[in-house]
């Protein structure tokens, strides 16, 4: 099995920062992939599959994070997670409300 590491910088665009709901969305997306997924920022490293860990980043709007995936589907995982940030966590179904 190919263990590739792929990383990419993402920026938190949500006005209220990476709070509980986007952290939940992010962990759900990360859990779709086999690869280990971590976020690095503010001198910390957080497991991308854990909401609790993601919340420890306290990433406010404008924070730059590096998403790092290692595993057989690293490339696809980083692509999908990058997409989530790019569309600002908007629900594809249409709701953009963040609470």
């Amino acid at each position: 099995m190919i263990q590739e590491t792929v990383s990419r910088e993402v920026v938190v665009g949500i006005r209220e920062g990476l709070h509980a709901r986007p952290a939940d969305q992010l962990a759900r997306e990360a859990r779709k992939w086999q690869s280990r997924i971590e976020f690095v920022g503010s001198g910390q490293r957080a497991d991308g599959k854990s909401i609790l860990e993601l919340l420890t980043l306290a990433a406010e709007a404008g924070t730059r994070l590096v998403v790092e995936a290692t595993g057989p589907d690293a490339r696809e995982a980083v692509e999908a997670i990058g997409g989530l940030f790019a569309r600002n966590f908007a629900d594809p179904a249409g709701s953009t409300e963040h609470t």
Partner: protein
Amino acid sequence: MKFSDFVAVDAIRSDVDADTKQGVIREMAESLVEAGKIAPAELESIVKAIMKREDLGSTGIGRGVAVPHTKHPSVDRLVGTVAVSRKGIDFESLDGEPVQLFFLLVSPPDRPGDHLRALENISRQLRDDGFCRRLKAAQTPTEIGDLLEEADSHGFVS
């Protein structure tokens, strides 16, 4: 941000009666009313707003912990409380674990930074297994208050 910056000590509950999501949220909101942190007239509106937020996605963040919350115009600063359920309550958490430890937060609509930092403090401290376990095993509100104070002053953060 520390626990003492937002947790109303008088509203802490060590053994909630409720066995449903809505029940525990109501019990905690009522404890904040009793502690004088939220106005009695706002109780229903706050419970409704927290439940509406839960409908968007569970606030169960894993490890048997949930952070039900809402913004509400009736508070002028972040207020919160802590409750423990002995038996655990199904909260539809991502990891599927029943929730035993609840941190309920009500924040002013214009202070998203405070809310984010309260979540950071809660999640950072609860990353420590020992702290998590001791909170869940606490027998009295005073014991919970003491543990939070200990975390504030020394940090269980390794």
